[in-house]
């Protein structure tokens, strides 16, 4: 039999067509696919034993309890700690991916001076020279930390000043400081006992205060009933996530909070719905209605609704004094379920937002949000763990990042009870990184370092023999045998919780209705309250891949 060229072509074509009906090409395709999906440069997890450590989130001043899973010395996951008395096992969405911030692409690793590479030695020389030439201002974002004591001591020795940048929750308490003389840092909200909350744009269900505290209370006491034990009334121009889940909501004109608070106060006084007899707000009810966008009848109904289930407290999203005055009228200051004094030791601090005149240098700690720009002509030394490349500071100094620094966690700004915790350094900071406290310690070696301040604070707690230590079990401090044991427990994730203060110690005197200097922009809660320095990369799930939140503005742009 002679095989022709035509036979070969037919056989080849037939074989090719037949091959398609066998598993061979598909298996080859699959194998090639798997092979190309597993290039050697595709990252793989490290398979080592998992170690679990207790720590605290330092993204914001609230310090939620965290359980950090560690592999080969690196964090691979975080979860909340149910035994934490305030956060109660909850974390905000950013907290769940915060362990990845160590490797954030915007991580600052070298000293920068006016955009050029520099060194720590040059920064030290420049700062030491500034200290000899004039007063220095230290700006802190987390007042009350051990590093804050160091900053205050340095500023005092250099005849400079210590300033604070507060979050919106802390700012909302400043009017009471003016009227009562008690520092705002010593005040908090007794949310456990309140039964009606009137929120003027405060994002209570969107990261306000300690994220787990109010959301748990709300879930336990406000959900599942048409007439819940805890009534949340949200007053806000837009349908925020808090407004969407509130028991009642009132849509008002943007910036109408001040007028509405005055209108509610007028109704409360005219109809004698509260014990207070004044002061009467200057706005008429018609003016309040016009400015707030609600009808006069709606304001009357709202006022009656608010007092229908005491204790009641109004929560502002900023330092609006009209809303604070409404609380005074409602009798929500210094009473159970209202605004209470939690500490007798907290101090008042100067705000950093005002102009810093006659200053030679400003040192800004890494705890200060990245969008803070001091109003000064002085030389600015800015510590930051991350930077978008747009900082206006003269000196940009790389600071330790998340979980890289030993720090303590004082009481959260909105909490009604004192707490104390220690976040140990779980990860070794990269070379060339210094905290502001370490930097100042080199300038002035006589300053007490942070670890010794923390030890001193533990000694004070131990000597007072008050409060309890909350870990898996709750132990009275009086039962702890030594200060070393107390500090050891705190360093592995326990939380000290103080005794509740008697609410009656706080009194506000209000002779006339406050003039409200309206803020330049209406309250905005699209990003929560305290903005993280940078977003964890997995926050893309929130901002790009779902419709939950509007994309964050580029704050440093």
């Amino acid at each position: 039999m002679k095989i022709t060229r035509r036979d070969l072509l037919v056989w080849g074509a037939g074989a090719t067509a037949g091959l398609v009906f066998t598993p061979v090409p598909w298996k080859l395709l699959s194998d090639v696919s798997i092979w190309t999906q597993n290039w050697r440069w595709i990252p793989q997890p490290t398979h080592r034993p998992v170690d679990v450590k207790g720590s605290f989130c330092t993204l914001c001043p609230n310090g939620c309890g965290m359980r950090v899973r560690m592999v080969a010395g690196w964090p691979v996951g975080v979860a909340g700690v149910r035994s934490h008395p305030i956060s109660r096992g909850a974390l905000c969405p950013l907290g769940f991916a915060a362990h990845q911030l160590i490797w954030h692409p915007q991580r600052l690793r070298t000293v920068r001076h006016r955009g050029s590479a520099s060194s720590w030695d040059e920064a030290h020389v420049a700062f030491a020279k500034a200290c000899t030439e004039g007063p220095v201002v230290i700006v802190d974002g987390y007042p009350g930390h051990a590093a804050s004591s160091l900053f205050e001591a340095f500023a005092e020795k250099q005849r400079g000043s210590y300033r604070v940048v507060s979050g919106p929750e802390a700012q909302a308490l400043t009017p009471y400081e003016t009227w009562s003389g008690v520092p705002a840092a010593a005040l908090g909200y007794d949310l456990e006992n309140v039964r009606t909350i009137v929120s003027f744009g405060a994002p209570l269900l969107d990261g306000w205060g300690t994220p787990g505290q109010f959301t748990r209370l709300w879930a336990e006491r406000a959900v599942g009933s048409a007439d819940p034990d805890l009534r949340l009334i949200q007053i806000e121009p837009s349908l925020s996530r808090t407004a969407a889940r509130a028991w009642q909501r009132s849509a008002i004109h943007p910036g109408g909070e001040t007028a509405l608070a005055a209108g509610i106060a007028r109704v409360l006084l005219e109809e004698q719905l509260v014990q207070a007899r004044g002061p009467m707000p200057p706005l008429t009810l018609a003016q309040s209605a016009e400015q707030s966008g609600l009808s006069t009848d709606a304001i009357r109904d709202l006022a009656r609704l608010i007092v229908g289930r005491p204790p009641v407290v109004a929560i502002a999203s900023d330092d609006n004094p009209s809303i604070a005055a409404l609380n005074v009228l409602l009798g929500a200051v210094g009473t159970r379920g209202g605004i209470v004094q939690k500490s007798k030791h907290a101090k008042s601090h100067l705000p950093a937002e005002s102009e810093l005149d006659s200053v030679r240098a400003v040192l800004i700690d890494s705890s200060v949000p990245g969008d803070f720009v001091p109003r000064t002509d002085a030389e600015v030394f800015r510590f930051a763990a991350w930077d978008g490349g747009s900082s206006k500071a003269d000196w940009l100094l790389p600071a330790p990042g998340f979980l890289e620094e030993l720090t303590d966690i004082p009481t959260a700004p909105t909490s009604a009870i004192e707490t104390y915790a220690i976040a140990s350094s779980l990860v070794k900071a990269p070379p060339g990184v210094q905290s502001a406290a370490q930097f100042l310690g080199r300038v002035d070696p006589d300053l007490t370092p942070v670890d010794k301040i923390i030890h001193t604070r533990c000694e004070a707690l131990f000597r007072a023999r008050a409060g309890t230590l909350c870990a898996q079990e709750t132990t009275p401090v009086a039962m702890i045998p030594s200060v070393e044991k107390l500090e050891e427990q705190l360093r592995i994730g326990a939380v000290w919780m103080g005794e509740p203060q008697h609410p009656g110690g706080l009194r506000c005197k209000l002779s006339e209705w406050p003039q409200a200097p309206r803020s330049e922009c209406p309250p905005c809660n699209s990003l929560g309250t305290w903005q993280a320095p940078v977003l964890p990369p997995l926050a893309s799930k929130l901002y790009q891949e779902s419709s939950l939140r509007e994309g964050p503005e580029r704050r440093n742009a």
Partner: protein
Amino acid sequence: MSTRYGMVIDLDRCTGCGACMVACAAENNVPPLPQATSRTGLTPMLVRRVSNGMEGQARREVFIPILCMHCEHETPCVSVCPQQAVELDKGTGIVMQMPQRCLGCRYCMTACPYHARYFNWWDPAWPQGMEKSLNPGVAVRMRGVVEKCNLCHARLHSAKEKAAAAGKREIDPADYVPACVEACPTAAIQFGNLADKDDPVSREAHSPDAFRFLERIGTEPKVYYKSGEAWVRALKGSVSEVEVKRG
């Protein structure tokens, strides 16, 4: 006793914070891809914001976490997969996805009535050094395959290993909690054994306010939702309606 893992999600408790989405991604080594969008992202747990369509004071909104419903009966994705890359685990009721078998044909995405499956368009990539943060219990998400929620199966493995080490046959339910359940700050997501009548989740699933999406098509999904609001319960007829009413 047979086990049928499932969830009850109380929509009245969900504040739409998104902690479940981020915790899920971190647990399952989902890469943070800057190019991903709402159409191309890998979100085994996706929270959708849905309104009642009204405006002004009458407008109501709810947040609905959507994940694989782990259909028990004639599971659509199982029946269409040409590679047997999806199967219903008889022992747990979990619908398992095996990316090594997946061809990436995406029939299952078309078949899934809940739109809870996602195609992975890109090789997994992290910023330099961030690969050290990968969860060692879970593989990285490979390119060109379909992904979905597997109820944090790696955690079930860990719980089984722990039970075996202790000489027990059954796991302690406290040892197996999916990441989204653990992360929810309001305890809106409850997880348990639907086959156990004494399990709180099983009881919640049979409450009058509980419902399942697209129950009428008979796939017996094991993710239940719950709401006291009638307009929310009325959404159960159509997931596409949920999508239309987004935003």
